[in-house]
């Protein structure tokens, strides 16, 4: 009977995920999945002969309070960090479930498949935990966003990975508790080592992959306690995260291996073309210049990037768009798949500012429109509009699908300084004759432009 009820919860997850995939039904989908989860917890509380009620209820109370607090307080601009933390906590929860099994069972009597499941659950859960918190640190600015590299890094990572395999086999065969803890410790270390060499601009891939891992950790825990809902829920999330991971790497024209291991963006802009343009002058724009360009344009395309999130400028951009529309200018937004720090990051921010859905264009929709666009306004985006990806075979990002903004009439780039973005690659767009550089924080730039627009 319990198993049938659990199956109903698993069905709720599948229906919920399916509905999450379409704008009209997404909210109900999330709620259906939540109801399934609540049902699964209640069934467990009733069906298991729980002895330590105090421990269970205390854990539920603490977790609920912290979860509500975090979910209500978090700003939409900080959503990538939030999802990273939730991923990490889900991962460590699965590892801890396996760890209680280690403490309470006679390890020498374990079957091989249970031992392997416990070890995998600890391994994946622990990597997800520390990896997610390093990603959080990079996104929050607590840690440097640039790749952190040191000599022998890859050799060390390989050594740690081999150590996990070696100790894991020994632990499984000998049934020594300490072996399981060593695997746990090394896995925590590997999570840190694996994410520190990955640059901030590659975070959409990392977050998606960690999302997948948190699901796989849950599935592994499901094998440990022989629980189908864990296996089903974990496999669903593992698959979903993996799909998004590959969609992100595809949008960057890179392999997953390249993102994870290449220390991308540390060689600087050392290409021949980039070196040549670095000394060239740029055209600077004042708020008045920007207002004149935008105010007399028939069509404007806004390209948001991570800088929009950093400056919390989503409401300011909406105000500018409103002011332009009042003047009869058509405004659209071109959103690159890897703009921001997680898949769909820009869409969430613009939704918060109530930007109409029809104005948001994805890469395929937006790109053909640039030749007919009068003015492109770039807000804190860099690599996704870098023409080197199209023109310069020696560029690190050559071959990445970009928004070809340099085909529009005028390009206004709002950026705090000329320094290259997270990927550390110089951008010839900034030195183009048709480009105006507006050096300012995105929010200040937008607000001063709106003010200037009123005086036209």
């Amino acid at each position, binding site marked *: 009977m319990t198993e049938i009820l659990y199956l109903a919860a698993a069905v709720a997850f599948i229906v919920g995920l399916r509905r999450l995939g379409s704008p009209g039904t997404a909210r109900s989908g999330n709620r259906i999945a939540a109801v399934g989860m609540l049902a*699964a917890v209640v069934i467990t509380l009733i069906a298991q002969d729980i002895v330590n009620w105090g421990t269970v209820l205390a854990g539920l109370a603490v977790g609920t309070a912290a979860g509500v607090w975090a979910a209500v307080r978090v700003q939409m601009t900080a959503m990538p960090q939030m999802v990273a933390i939730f991923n990490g906590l889900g991962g460590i929860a699965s590892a801890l479930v396996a760890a209680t099994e280690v403490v309470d069972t006679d390890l020498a009597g374990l079957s091989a498949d249970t031992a392997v499941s416990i070890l995998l659950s600890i391994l994946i859960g622990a990597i997800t935990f520390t990896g997610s918190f390093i990603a959080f640190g990079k996104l929050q600015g607590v840690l440097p966003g640039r790749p952190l590299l040191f000599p022998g890094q890859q050799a060390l990572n390989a050594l740690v990975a081999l150590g996990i395999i070696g100790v894991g086999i020994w632990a499984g065969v000998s049934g020594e508790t300490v072996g399981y803890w060593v695997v746990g410790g090394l896995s925590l270390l590997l999570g840190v080592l694996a994410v520190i060499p990955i640059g901030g601009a590659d975070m959409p891939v990392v977050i998606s992959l960690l999302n997948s891992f948190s699901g796989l950790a849950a599935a592994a825990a499901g094998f440990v306690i022989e629980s189908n809902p864990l296996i089903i829920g974990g496999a669903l999330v593992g698959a979903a995260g993996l799909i998004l991971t590959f969609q992100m790497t595809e949008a960057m024209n890179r392999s997953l291996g390249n993102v994870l291991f290449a220390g991308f963006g540390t060689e600087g802009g050392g290409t021949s073309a980039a070196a040549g343009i670095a000394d060239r002058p740029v055209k600077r724009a004042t708020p008045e210049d920007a207002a004149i360009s935008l105010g007399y344009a028939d069509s404007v395309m806004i390209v948001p990037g991570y800088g929009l999130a950093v400056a919390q400028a989503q409401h300011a951009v909406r105000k500018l768009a409103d002011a332009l529309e009042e003047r009869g200018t058509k405004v659209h937004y071109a959103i690159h798949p890897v703009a921001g720090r997680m898949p769909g990051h820009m869409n969430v921010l613009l939704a918060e500012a109530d930007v109409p859905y029809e104005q948001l264009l994805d890469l395929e929709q937006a790109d053909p429109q640039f030749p007919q666009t009068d003015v492109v306004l770039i807000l804190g985006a860099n690599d996704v509009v870098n023409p080197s990806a199209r023109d310069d075979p020696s560029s690190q990002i050559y071959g990445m699908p970009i928004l070809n903004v340099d085909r529009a009439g005028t390009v206004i780039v709002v950026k705090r300084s000329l320094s290259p973005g997270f990927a550390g690659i110089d951008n010839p767009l900034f030195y183009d004759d048709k480009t105006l550089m507006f050096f300012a924080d995105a929010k200040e730039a937008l607000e001063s432009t709106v003010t200037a627009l009123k005086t036209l």
Partner: protein
Amino acid sequence: MSALVVGITVFVLAAFVGFELISKVPPTLHTPLMSGANAISGITIIGAVTAAGLGATPLAQILGFLAVATATVNVVGGFLVTDRMLDMFRSRSERRRDSE
């Protein structure tokens, strides 16, 4: 069939369902999809509740408590924040309906 084979069967089938469900989601929904999926991965909470509830030794109970607490943050926070995000998407579509 052994429990392991049953488990692997369930895992593989569920993974294929996941691939089918997610492969055509529009980019606009990627963030809420990810945070909603993340909340679902908190299903490990039922393993955590079992582990904490049945833990025989003090150490097992401490680990179980931590497992319940972390999984609950994942579940409650994940579903709530997804709902908050999707609420913003909804207000947009409602406004569109009003203007028509």
